């Protein structure tokens, strides 16, 4: 108590405390203010459509009919697809680089993986149009339709541009985030853990499974969630390959649309207030979804972090 007093009475420290507090609070204020501004701008649309805005499938600016469901669907499907593809690969990259690779190789591959994060999304988009989409149309989609065509996900005409392309491109984009963070947290696992496992006669895989992964799991979860956050909000690369069609179709080959993409595409030419307001409401929903997902991610990380540090040796 008395020690704390002495520390805080110093003039400089108090100023610092105040200054940093102000900065910390400014983030909260900014968030709240942004939320309020968006809500305010979206009000005409909220009043006109109410909840039907979320359940309506029609988006027709000419007839002033606005429903956000196809955009929510497209965003969630492509992001989840990206996560399903990128999480295991990202984790694999991290395990390999951290536990298996020689240090020279590790430096080179690690650098290259992180380079992926530095490529501008429009470049990914161009690559998507000129390389990924034709490849999907000519090779991947016909193949999937042939072997897995009994599942509705892989039915329909191969077009190239669609949810599969969107999900794939997002997977490439979030891979470095997941890999880099997983690698960091795995590197932070004390070597004693590894040595202990090895001393008990564990193989490399057993050592990773028993000693490294359980120790790092909350951090890995955090990395995956950060990746998901990026996938939800990614605009340019997605809009260039997703086909931009507000439809809800079960097939991954079908064109779709994402929330961020429709805002970017239609915002500049939204010629009347209700239209603009509907676009802002989509932004508000995206904001909300990101917030809720982040909240659950925190919860997950927190509950995982509270669990026992070691794994169960079976």
């Amino acid at each position, binding site marked *: 108590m008395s020690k704390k007093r002495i520390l805080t009475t110093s003039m400089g420290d108090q100023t610092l405390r105040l200054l940093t507090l102000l900065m910390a609070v400014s983030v909260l204020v900014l968030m709240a203010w942004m939320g309020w501004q968006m809500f305010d701008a979206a009000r005409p649309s909220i009043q006109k459509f109410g909840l039907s805005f979320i359940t309506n499938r029609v988006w027709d600016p000419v*007839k002033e009919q606005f429903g956000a469901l196809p955009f929510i669907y497209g965003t969630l499907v492509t992001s989840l697809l990206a996560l399903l593809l990128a999480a295991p690969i990202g984790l694999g990259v991290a395990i390999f680089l951290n536990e298996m690779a020689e240090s020279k190789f590790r430096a080179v591959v690690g650098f290259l993986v992180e380079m992926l994060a530095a490529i501008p999304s429009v470049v990914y988009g161009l690559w998507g149009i000129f390389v990924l989409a034709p490849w999907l149309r000519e090779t991947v989609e016909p193949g999937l339709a042939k072997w897995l065509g009994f599942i509705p996900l892989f039915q329909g005409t191969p077009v190239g541009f669609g949810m599969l392309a969107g999900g794939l491109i997002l997977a490439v984009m979030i891979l470095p985030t997941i890999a880099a963070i997983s690698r960091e947290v795995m590197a932070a696992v004390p070597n004693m853990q590894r040595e202990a496992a090895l001393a008990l006669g564990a193989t490399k895989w057993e050592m990773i499974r028993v000693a490294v992964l359980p120790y790092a799991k909350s951090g890995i979860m955090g990395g995956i969630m950060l990746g998901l956050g990026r996938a939800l909000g990614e605009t340019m690369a997605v809009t260039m390959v997703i086909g931009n069609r507000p439809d809800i179709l079960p097939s991954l080959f079908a064109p779709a649309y994402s929330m961020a993409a429709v805002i970017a*595409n239609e915002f500049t030419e939204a*010629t009347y207030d209700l239209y603009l307001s509907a676009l802002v409401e989509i932004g508000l929903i995206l904001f909300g979804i990101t917030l809720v997902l982040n909240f659950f991610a925190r919860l997950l990380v927190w509950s995982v972090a509270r669990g026992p540090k070691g794994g169960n040796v079976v």
Partner: protein
Amino acid sequence: MFRKKGRLLAHVLTAVLMLSFVGCGEKNPGTPTGQGQAETANLTGSGSSFVYPLLNQQIEEYRKGNSNITINYQSSGSGAGIKQVSEQTIDFGATDGPMTDEQLKATKGGQLLHIPLTLGAVAVTYNVPNAPKELKIAPTVLADIFLGKITNWNDQQIANDNPGVSLPDSKITVAHRSDGSGTTYIFSDYLSSISPEWLSKVGKGTSLNWPAGLGGKGNAGVAGVIQQTSGSIGYLELAYAVQNNLPYAMMKNKEGKWVPPSLQTTSAAAAAATIPDDMRVSIVNAPGADAYPIAGFSWALIYKDQTDKAKGTALVNFINWSIHDGQALSEGLHYAKLPASLVSREEEMLKSITFQGEPLIK
């Protein structure tokens, strides 16, 4: 060391503050600059991205002879241009689709004039194996393709207009703009004018509820989809199609003649169309044997009553130059020239712009 950092922070903060003040200054073009400085003027405009390359070059050229005038045009999109000029946060707007009566009533600065700056045409382009460079596509066929009713290139209705051409048994993939654009406005305006079904089902606008097809972002996005997808058809700004050497279709105009899109046929459409006094007119499906049917204007949006003499004079002078001498820059950039008959009418319009009841140019 801490002190040093503190000072650095202070410097940064000061710089940020100063910048924000500068920002405020620029955001307020409505503030009168005073009567004494009639020679210099700082104009801000915003809107149509279609007209941007031309306008930008015109501004540069104009500054060579009038270094006292600074014009800053942002290609923020027609919607944003209309919004900003209505709220008087800029000196002039530019749009590819005319403002509605409702929008005109809601302006803060009184009557807004539509002054045509240039003409654009929309080319229908395609990627069909073995198809000739100028495929003929009749208006109703075009509408049915975009409505998703004609779905294969070997359809008899396409073949009827193209004797001797054998088109493949290949599915049609429709490509359209996904971003709101004046190009989409002109294209849907045309389809609405020739197809009652299109008019009732889809209508015209900068963004549509498309019955069929894939969306690409921007001209580049649509061109990318078309080039990468065999059997596709889409529409592009003429300039873009020409520069990228894409094949484009001949269209049948109102007189029943097959016309390729070009700068001449676009100007011909504007010359033949009947244009009302307020210039808010659609020139799709215009009469005239040489007229290309999918064309439209880009307009400058200017208040009839200017609130600042120096700025108003500079603006009217610049627009007057733009529709006269400035048109010489059009063809190099693949824009169609305004027809002479229209330019003289626009000049009369510019003469009607006033400051406190006094015309700004004679």
